[in-house]
């Protein structure tokens, strides 16, 4: 009885220490990696921009005014007030407003496709790892098939047949990434399923589903979040390329990729502001997600073997 009480106190102590040291470690790691802090701040900025775009924007993103096209940054109207903060585009639309609204699309596409891909990938990966044998084989073969397709070709094939649109884009980009989650989820599940808590759950008669998604999942989320971060970066870049190829979202939805693609003809004409601002927006955001992914991976380092 005494032993048990001791053990119990020990356990509770350990648990408390772990919890507080967990948080301390987290923030210690974060602040030592100063670029990660900057990245998270940037992320907060653009999330807010996306949410409040219609409140803070000075103009309508789609209203064109061809008499005032390609105005340089800080262009003024007749009263001397600054009308176009970072200039206007080829149709006289305010670039600043479009940049703000563009954040919406980048984030929505980024997060939604990661959600779709993550959902499919993690589920399939965990199922493959947990049940093994035939299920594992089938799912891994599916993964091989998917990997055989250069991502953009898959996107092209389906977007050409299905047509353009935000939902189609999210679906295509999401389905393109599921394998990246599946592989890690599977490897992690395999190593987790021999652990005690799983045995315990099985002994308690829990269903497989609740074991997989209830018990194992929380323990393997960490590396998956790392992957997710890198994937958001890739998706934002992919959207830019697809816009360049004319397979992005419809023209009345401003996106950074489309703004960059539309600026092509103007680069030569030395209208630097047209490619610069959306280009920087893409660059910084992608960089931010890459840095966050890097930091998360380093922070979780001892627990991971290979994550890319």
């Amino acid at each position, binding site marked *: 009885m005494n032993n048990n009480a001791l053990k119990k106190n020990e356990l509770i102590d350990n648990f408390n220490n772990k919890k507080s040291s967990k948080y301390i470690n987290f923030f210690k790691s974060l602040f030592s990696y100063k670029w990660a802090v900057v990245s998270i701040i940037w992320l907060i900025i653009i999330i807010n921009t996306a949410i409040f775009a219609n409140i803070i924007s000075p103009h309508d993103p789609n209203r064109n005014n061809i008499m005032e096209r390609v105005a340089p940054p800080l262009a003024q109207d007749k009263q001397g007030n600054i009308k176009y903060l970072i200039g206007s585009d080829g149709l006289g639309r305010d670039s600043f407003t479009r940049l703000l609204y563009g954040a919406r699309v980048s984030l929505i596409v980024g997060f939604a496709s990661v959600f779709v891909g993550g959902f499919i990938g993690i589920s399939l990966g965990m199922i493959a790892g947990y049940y093994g044998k035939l299920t594992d084989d089938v799912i891994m*073969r599916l993964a091989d*098939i998917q990997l055989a*397709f250069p991502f*953009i070709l*898959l996107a*092209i*094939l389906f977007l050409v047949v299905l047509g353009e649109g935000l939902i189609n884009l999210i679906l295509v980009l999401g389905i393109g990434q599921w394998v990246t989650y599946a592989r890690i989820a599977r490897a992690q599940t395999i190593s987790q399923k021999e652990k005690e808590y799983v045995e315990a759950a099985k002994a308690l008669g829990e269903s497989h589903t609740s074991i997989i998604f209830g018990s194992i999942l929380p323990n393997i989320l960490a590396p998956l979040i790392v992957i997710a971060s890198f994937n958001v*970066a890739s998706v934002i870049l992919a959207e830019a390329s697809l816009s360049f*190829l004319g397979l992005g979202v419809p023209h009345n939805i401003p996106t950074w990729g489309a703004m960059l693609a539309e600026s*092509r003809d103007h680069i030569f004409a030395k209208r630097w502001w047209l490619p610069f601002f959306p280009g920087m927006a893409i660059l910084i955001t992608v960089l931010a997600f890459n840095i966050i992914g890097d930091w998360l991976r380093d922070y979780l380092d001892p627990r991971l073997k290979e994550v890319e």
Partner: protein
Amino acid sequence: MFIYILRRLPQTILVIFGVTLITFIALQIGGDPTYLFVSERASAEEIELTRIKLGFDRPLYIQYFSYLFNIMRLDFGDSLYYRQPAMDVILETLPATIELTLFAMFIAIFGAIPFGIFAAIKRGTWIDGALMAVAMLGQSIPSFWLGIMSIIYLSLPISWLPISGHVPFLMPIFQGNFIEGIKNFPTTCLYLILPGFAVAFYSLSRNARLIRSSMLEVLSQDYVRTARAKGLSEYAVVINHAMRNAWLPVVTIIGLEFGFMLSGVVVVEVIFAWPGLGRLVFDSISHRDIPLVQASVVVIALIVIILNLIVDLVYAKLDPRIKLS
């Protein structure tokens, strides 16, 4: 080794099946595929005739097997836009893309090695920081922007650097005209520089970071410390001992790399007027030339699969542990 190939073969074949199934589904997913194969002016009877001629009135599973059978004979039907067999059009543009992709992979691997190793050796110094910063940037820039920038700011001012276009090297070789191919080789290389870099930069950056971290890991291992203790210089340590193991992770991802690079190739080929398969895909999308899109996608996927197989075999040869798994 042979047994390994034997074991991998059914897997590969299965993947090929899967790829064809996906492209088959893609075609059917939008409804009656007949409309994708007829030209704009077709009358209702013509459409019906085409539907029967192409077999879209048959049950789906028969259609699929017939499609599979055709693929094995490399018969993808006729391109709507060019009005000739899709395979012929693809074969004409394939050599150019192979040139570009091989060159890009070469840069992405052998360019990254000194990059990554140097950064690892100089770990912690500003050199390391600078190199890694460039690598991070490299993974954050859209390749088409890089391409246009390099045209305007590099090839225009530098007169000997070509802007766009292509001088064929592989194509004459494939046709047996070795003399012309060899004669063109230097010029082909010159034309390959900018587009090759535009395609490779992302992968080069990623590989550099990979090599650096793998190098760091290797450098901290016991046998390396032993070598250092023996008094060998840092460079000797690196080259003789560490490198042998450090670049294995890179080999692992070469197969994936090729597939990934193809995404950049499409865009770069358009900008640099490189007449390859990527550009063909782009054009056939604009024309909604579905037979050609489908054929291109299958051909590229097949190439990636075969390449992966080769890479796996090479890896198996290099790392004896794998053979036994």
